[in-house]
């Protein structure tokens, strides 16, 4: 068992599950989407990105690309939340919630690709 692979798989999977948990629920209802979950998803996604640094293989490059996409989407979702909460006068309206959650939905797709890549890599691994 390779400890590096365990940590790597753990973070990639955790980023996807947290993201999924946040995305779940009525897209326009702010009560169903906990902001702490989004923040945790962002932090884990960043860690997963850093873990993918320095891999020179082709699959490593795609891994890094998907992670960067997920980061970008989650950062955008967080900015929407900050905008709605702190700057706009209306607060968390249904429109703001919907755009925040749909952005995180994009990140979820990227995270799913990451998981698929991880599974593919594991399945095609031949020892010796």
């Amino acid at each position: 068992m390779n400890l590096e692979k365990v940590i790597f798989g753990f973070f990639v999977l955790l980023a996807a599950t947290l993201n999924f948990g946040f995305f779940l629920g009525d897209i326009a209802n702010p009560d169903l989407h906990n902001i702490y979950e989004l923040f945790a998803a962002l932090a884990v996604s960043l860690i997963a990105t850093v873990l993918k640094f320095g891999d020179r293989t082709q699959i490593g490059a795609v891994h890094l690309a998907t992670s960067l996409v997920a980061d970008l989407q989650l950062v955008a979702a967080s900015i929407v939340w900050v905008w709605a909460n702190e700057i706009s006068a209306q607060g968390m309206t249904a429109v703001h919630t919907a755009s925040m959650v749909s952005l995180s939905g994009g990140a979820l797709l990227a995270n799913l690709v990451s998981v698929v890549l991880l599974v593919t890599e594991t399945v095609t691994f031949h020892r010796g």
Partner: protein
Amino acid sequence: MSNPLLVFWAQLFSRREAVGRVPSQAHIESAAQASSAIFVVMRRMRAPLITLIVIFFVSVVGLTLIPGVAPDGQPARLNLFESFYFMSYTATTIGFGELPWPFSNAQRLWVTFSIYLSVVGWAYAIGSLLTLLQDRSFRQALALRRFTGKVARLREPFLLLAGYGRAGELLAKSFDALGQQLVVIDESSERVDALDLASYHSDIPGLRANAANPHHLTAAGLDHPFCSGVLALTNNDETNLAVTMTAALLRPDLPVIARTVSAPIAERMRAFGTPAVVNPFDRFGDHLRLALNAPASYQLLTWLEAGPGGELPERGHPPTDGRWVMCGYGRFGREVTADLRAAGLDVTIIEAGATDLGERGEPEPGVIVGDASHPGVLARADLASAVGLVAGTDNDTTNLSMLATARKSNPQLFLVARQNQPTSAALFETMRVDALLVPTEVVAHEVYAQISTPMLWRFIREMPAQGDEWAADLIQRLRYNCGRELPALWKVKLDAEQAPALGGWLADGKVTLGDLLRSPEDRKRRLLVVPLLLVRGDEAVLTPDGETILKPDDQLLFAGHGSERRELESTLVVDSTGAYVLFDQQIPSSWIWRKLSRKNRTPSTLDDRSDASSSHV
């Protein structure tokens, strides 16, 4: 490969593919070496970056969970955004204070904790980054990357110079003066630093690497389309051999010049293609023989090889007969002794180690075994009756002390010395020896003569056959026309590109060299230009005279100053100037006047070409 057509195809084209593929593969590998360093940095930065992210996450979330008090007395917590903002300016030590309102003590407790945590995190991350930047292999990889980029961007013909020692430096200066671009590889970082510090006109890329490694040679542009030649001038014969080999295998089309002092290595170099091998000892022996037989030829040779701006050297008066004493019978001693004997001179040999002598089987006649720096040993060679002495050991101190002793016992001796270290130059200069071998300079001059203009090399090879009086005469002409400093040497090919104005007249056999070298301002004045060589097909004429009739595609090598060169070029390019200089005819230089005066023009071949060449007017 079961398909017969495929097999046929492969046999037909595999050779060509292989030649084209090898350099590119080597290039990819050297580029990969450079980029791998970037991956190492990213890999090593993983732990510090993750630590930072975790610390940030924990302190931001923690701060939102700790209860605080709003100004109106109601319990209130910071939300994620406020907490993130606060932690950002606190962790980066900017510190705007407690925003949006004063903290409760519980919050202050958490903030204290997270400040220490984040300071440790930042220190760790920045420390790791700085350590990586100082990392030797990383810096080397960066330097290699910068170097390959510089070489890849070169868009002019360049020479690849392996070894930037004394010879390399002298050559780099000469070539830089000629406007020839170079790329340098040297194993010593001091030499590469010296390259950076030296003030060259062009920016010469230098790489600190072992030239024997084909990847480094490829990185230095061996497979670059603009690479025009390879010079292997390191101090190490093995490295030079490796460079010669690599160049011959990867780029068989390139000329290679290699330096060696060993005959077996020279043989092994010649096994790969046709490199020009320069052996400084061998060349010095040839020069010494030339100096003995034909002092003026030797003087001319050293002057021409000195490069642009070289001072006219003094003409020596070596003794033409008598007995010579040879101190030090190593590789250098053997070459020189053979040359002296070939010139019909008696040679007495002094050698400290008997082992060197034993190699040839029988002891040579006239050999004295002993340390030549010992006065008693020199006395046995009977210096009083000798005419010349060669101090040719590989130790400068020994050579100098021998010279001093010899001069004391016989002031009339013709002294030849070998200088090994560049630092001894001042000492040998004050000794005022009659002929001094500095191997690096011999190599530099030789390579310069071979590479700068191929016609100069041809001239130098054919020159000794012309005799001493001819050489003395040519030196007189050069001095009269160009002064004591060697003028620029340049070549002209009389073709449509370089001499468009002469085309028709050349074909008719109307142009003589003497007429061509008249001044465009006043054709009675001769240009201060000396024609050194005329090459027509395979035939070469040294110092062609004014009566020579020029033909199309003749190549000429001239010596003369830049101003004279420009005047000659205007004769070659401008129709009206050419007509005046060659035939004393006035031709209108504009197209309209030419059309108007077409009828009363004296017959010449201008009619057919006036339209084509009017753009030059």
